[in-house]
């Protein structure tokens, strides 16, 4: 939902980033206001995931230019955990397995850590149990999930549900969901997408990083951005995603090169 007077959440200005001296992001501009859903699409290797990880503070990426403001604060000066506490959430494409630590203990640890940092009440194990089970119903998760080790031996669908459950617990102002649709069958995709829709409010923003249009059948974006070669080369509304689905990405890149001959050399 686009509200013209909605407060600005994220402002990315000319962001450039490299990994091992190789430039991946070459000047990204992106503005996300409260209530908006943005989709970032593009072919493999276009820099979509790097953008998501750079905003979240992944240490492998060296920011070589530009700035990122989150609710007016300079994000790039903050370590990843502070960004998370400030309200940024990254849904991982490949969530990490932590064998030996139960989900219930892990979820309560991250919940209370973030609550504490935000000056809000922490929950004891019994209170948390009620709280988390309510959130789990949102994602149609089986109760035995709490007793299992974090992501260990989970199917692709279970891992992605767990990501969205963590999003539900941490109540971010900005959720960046990296390929949340990959590896999901159609039923799991519907459940996960419904969960995200229920968590979306007028106060938070969502950035969906995705390769395919099918997720956007369930979560309707306000803006669709196409990335290629480390840049956003086209921005449109939800109809752009449908056009990409039928025509592919090549025509966007050709259009961009025609309009920006200097970009070819980069």
């Amino acid at each position, binding site marked *: 939902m686009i509200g013209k007077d909605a407060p600005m959440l994220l402002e990315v200005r000319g962001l450039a980033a490299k990994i091992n001296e190789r430039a991946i992001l070459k000047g990204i501009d992106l503005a996300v206001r409260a209530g908006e859903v943005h989709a970032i699409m593009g072919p493999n290797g276009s820099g979509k995931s790097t953008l998501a990880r750079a905003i979240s*503070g992944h240490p492998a990426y060296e920011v070589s230019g530009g700035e990122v403001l989150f609710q007016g604060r300079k994000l790039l000066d903050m370590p990843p955990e502070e960004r998370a506490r400030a309200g940024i959430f990254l849904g991982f494409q490949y969530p990490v397995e932590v064998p*030996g630590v139960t989900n219930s203990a892990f979820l309560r640890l991250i919940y209370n850590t973030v609550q504490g940092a935000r000056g809000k009440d922490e929950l004891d194990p019994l209170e948390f149990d009620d709280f988390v089970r309510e959130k789990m119903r949102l994602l149609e998760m089986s109760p035995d999930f709490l007793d299992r080790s974090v992501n260990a031996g989970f199917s692709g669908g279970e891992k992605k549900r767990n990501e969205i459950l963590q999003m539900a617990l941490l109540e971010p102002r900005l959720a960046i969901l990296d390929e949340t649709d990959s590896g999901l069958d159609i039923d799991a995709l519907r459940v996960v997408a419904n969960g995200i829709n229920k968590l979306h409010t007028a106060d938070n923003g969502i950035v969906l990083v995705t390769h395919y249009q099918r997720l956007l059948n369930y979560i309707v974006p306000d803006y669709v951005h196409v990335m290629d070669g480390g840049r956003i080369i086209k921005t449109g509304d939800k109809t752009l995603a449908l056009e990409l689905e039928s025509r592919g990405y090549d025509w966007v890149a050709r259009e961009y090169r025609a309009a920006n001959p200097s970009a070819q050399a980069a």
Partner: protein
Amino acid sequence: MTVAETVFLDTLLAPRRALPAAPTDWLKARRADALERAAALPAPTVRDEDWRFTDLSPLYRLQLQPASGGSIDPAALGLFALPESSARLVFVDGRHAPELSTRSDGTGLVVVPLAEALESRGDALQRHLAAIARCDADIFAAANTAFLQDAAVVIAGAGMSADRPVHVLQVATGRETAAHPRVLIIAEHGAACTVVEDFVAIGGIGYFTNCVTEIAVEGNAEVRHVKIQREAETAFHMANTSVRLERDARYRNWSVTFGARISRHNLHIRQAGEAIECEVDGLALISGRQLADTHSMIDHASALGRSRQLHKTVVGGAGHAVFNGKILVRAGAQQTDSAQQSRNILLTSRAHVDTKPQLEIFADDVKCAHGATVGQIDAEEVFYLKSRGLSEETARNLLTYAFAAEVIEKIPVKSLAQALERTVLEHTQEKQQ
């Protein structure tokens, strides 16, 4: 030989003069034989291939006293209680302490000190005691056998299955004393049992534990064996575990190492019949100037054997972990299926690990996999946890804990697994220093 080595060996073997006579002729002969071996063998040094990473000179500098068998407050043992156990044998500095032990309550399992076992089960003891552990090349195993006068004996009679574990608690109270704990476990045909060997200190400082454990697993029997080494951090711990398995037998081992300044565990498993399975998990969590050495040998002597081994170490401070995992597949041991993994995490730049898989295969139709990794905690995993708001320190502690917990959580005695998990959690933080 250095002066320190000479003096050490002299004091190590000194108790022979005060040793009471053996109650049976066969035991007398085996002790005498072992004493002869011990006197003939040199003290191992880093010049020996088997000891090249483990320098025992701090042990050789000890001014060893014979253990006096100090008294301890029974309440102090509460910390180590295992509510699940059906019986507990307590040894203080290697000597049986009947007043601290609790007898088996009607499970049919024989859990007795050596003297009783010699009377009631002399035949079984003559077959296995000082017959499984080899004394010909190891001076420490030889010394233990030479002074054999007390032991924990566990016998699961043919066909019986004991679900509840037996707890053998070895308590060290001495200062620069040497103790020679001894354990014999026999699972007769078709029997199954679980034994927890637990090495702890109550007041012990700079002492030397030299233990030998022999395990006989007869046809189609199963032994689940947990060894917890939580000695004082000034102690020296030398352990020889020898296991002999017969046809269709199963052996499951968990060895956890937290304590001792220098520790060495020689685990020798012989698959002496067909279709035997063994699974061996090890964990060493050390720091400071601790050294923890595990030398294992799985001897596939017959066909259709299966073995699985996972050895993990977490090394902080200037700690040093050593793993030498030998898998021997003899010529007749066709269709052996063996897999070994050594995984190691170094928490500091001063921490050190030497790991060496050693495969010797003389059969042509076998499957033997092995792998070793040494590294820091994975940066991607740390980032995942930090992206959920956890601090760098909490993220690293949680991942270290998870790494160690993979071994501990499989231990089949729940209260022990939980206690060990708490220890790991508490120590992960300080172990980084």
